[in-house]
């Protein structure tokens, strides 16, 4: 395999990896948002219980 | 008929208050001149290089300066709940919008009128060789900038960071309009008439103006009242 062919393959790998990295990054932002939502829900529930306790 | 009268009343009101306070026009005009000055450091300001990029320079200056005018257009109505009063008045949203757009149009054209000769003197360019066509391009492209800018001005009026949001949202939408204006102005200032392929740019400008004016008139009630 010549140098240019090797470089060709290397960049193909970069390209495919980049596609997946972008998707995974988006999924990670979704996960972070999910976690934040869970925290908010807990807070609200606690707040509701406090109010009802009074 | 009543519609046109209401529209003109709104435009006259805006222009009168602008002429009396000069809050936007002064800032905008001096900003445009500063930009024109700064461009002279960005490249070698000989008349040949300038002629090649004249349209780009001018329209960047106009677009940057225009934002200052457009920003004030609806924001001016915020103190004392004037915007709510306007919405509650019998003036329809479309007339309010077109009136404000008309006032902005006059102000932007005024700024351009001052900037063009200054540009010609600074950069040693005879820009008036095809004056009629240049005026046509200015009128069409400025209307495009005005109508899109006024819609976004209404859209962002209640937001935090209004001053930053408006240019950020407005410029990408204006790209086709500005591109046509830059291209045509460069040709005309370079001393050539609009021929051949460049006629397509003129058509694009007209299409842009028509489509966005109608969209704005249809959508403005949704933006202002909901």
């Amino acid at each position, binding site marked *: 395999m010549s140098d*240019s*062919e090797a*470089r*060709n*393959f290397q*960049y*193909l790998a*970069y*390209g*495919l990896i*980049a*596609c997946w990295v*972008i*998707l995974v990054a*988006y*999924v990670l932002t*979704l996960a972070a*948002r*999910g976690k934040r*939502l869970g925290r*908010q*829900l807990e807070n*609200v529930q606690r*707040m*509701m219980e406090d*109010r009802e306790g009074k | 008929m009543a519609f046109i009268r209401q529209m003109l009343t709104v435009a006259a009101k805006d222009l009168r208050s602008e002429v009396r306070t000069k809050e936007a026009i002064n800032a905008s005009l001096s900003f445009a001149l500063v930009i024109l000055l700064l461009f002279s450091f960005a490249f070698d300001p000989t008349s040949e290089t300038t002629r090649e990029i004249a349209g780009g320079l001018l329209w960047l200056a106009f677009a940057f300066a225009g934002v200052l005018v457009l920003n004030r257009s609806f924001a001016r109505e915020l103190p004392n709940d004037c915007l709510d009063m306007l919405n509650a008045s019998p003036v329809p949203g479309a007339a309010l919008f077109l009136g404000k757009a008309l006032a902005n149009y006059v102000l932007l054209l005024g700024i351009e009128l001052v900037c063009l000769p200054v540009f010609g003197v600074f950069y040693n360019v005879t820009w008036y060789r095809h004056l009629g066509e240049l005026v046509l391009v200015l009128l069409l492209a400025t209307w495009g900038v005005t109508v*899109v800018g006024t*819609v976004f001005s209404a*859209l*962002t009026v*209640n*937001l*935090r*960071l209004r001053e930053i*949001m408006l240019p*950020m*949202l407005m410029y*990408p*939408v204006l*790209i*086709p*309009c500005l*591109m*046509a204006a830059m*291209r045509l102005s460069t040709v005309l200032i370079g001393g050539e008439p609009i021929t051949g*392929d460049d006629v*397509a*740019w003129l058509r*694009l400008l007209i*299409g*842009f103006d028509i*489509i*966005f004016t109608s*969209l704005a008139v249809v*959508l403005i009630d*949704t*933006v202002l009242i*909901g």
Partner: protein
Amino acid sequence: MGMREKVMVVLGAVAAMLLTRNIWVMLTQLPDEAFQGAIFRIIFFHVPAAFTCFLCFFLALVAGIVYLAKKSLQWDAFAVSVTEVGLAFGAINLISGMIWARIIWGIWWTWDWRLTSMLVCWLLYAGYLVLRRAVEETTERARLGAVMLILNFSVVPFVFFSIKWFRTQHPQPVLFGEGKMDGIYREMLYGNWVPLLMIAAVLVLLRMKQENQQREIDALRRAAHSF
């Protein structure tokens, strides 16, 4: 597990299977393209990503119009979800294109009309997300967002035509000949679009669920405050 979750899991699983098969076929079965060598395989992700991106933007326009007609916040949730997913696929399109261009044209970026138009569209829709962040109140956010989606989509054809005209009047790098693509390649191109669409659908469903949850939580919080 609800109906929606089941659909998501099934879609995701089928997409994963199809993708594994496609990548395997792509790397081992398909011959190298005569002029470009191995790198041409990026096109099987690059082009379907662009298709997906514009499909998402179109759906966002539909969602915006339906929201204005019906004032149902479901459609607003759909609009923001498809826009976000569309932006993700737009980014895939841009980045993979840049990596391809580095090999074929020897540069990362050129102001070719396709690249420029894609970038402008990406910025337009990124602006929509920025606008949403700046508006506090839910229905106002949905309303202004819907208006912006309509304005954005109306400018997309202008962007494409104008940038094409602008660029064809200027020198540009010579592109690969726009001949017919070979049958097997075209089959793979569309074959790979299917799993990408499935992934997009799963992501949209996930994002919509979150948007709806967010709204419920906000409503609960308001209720708690008003006790």
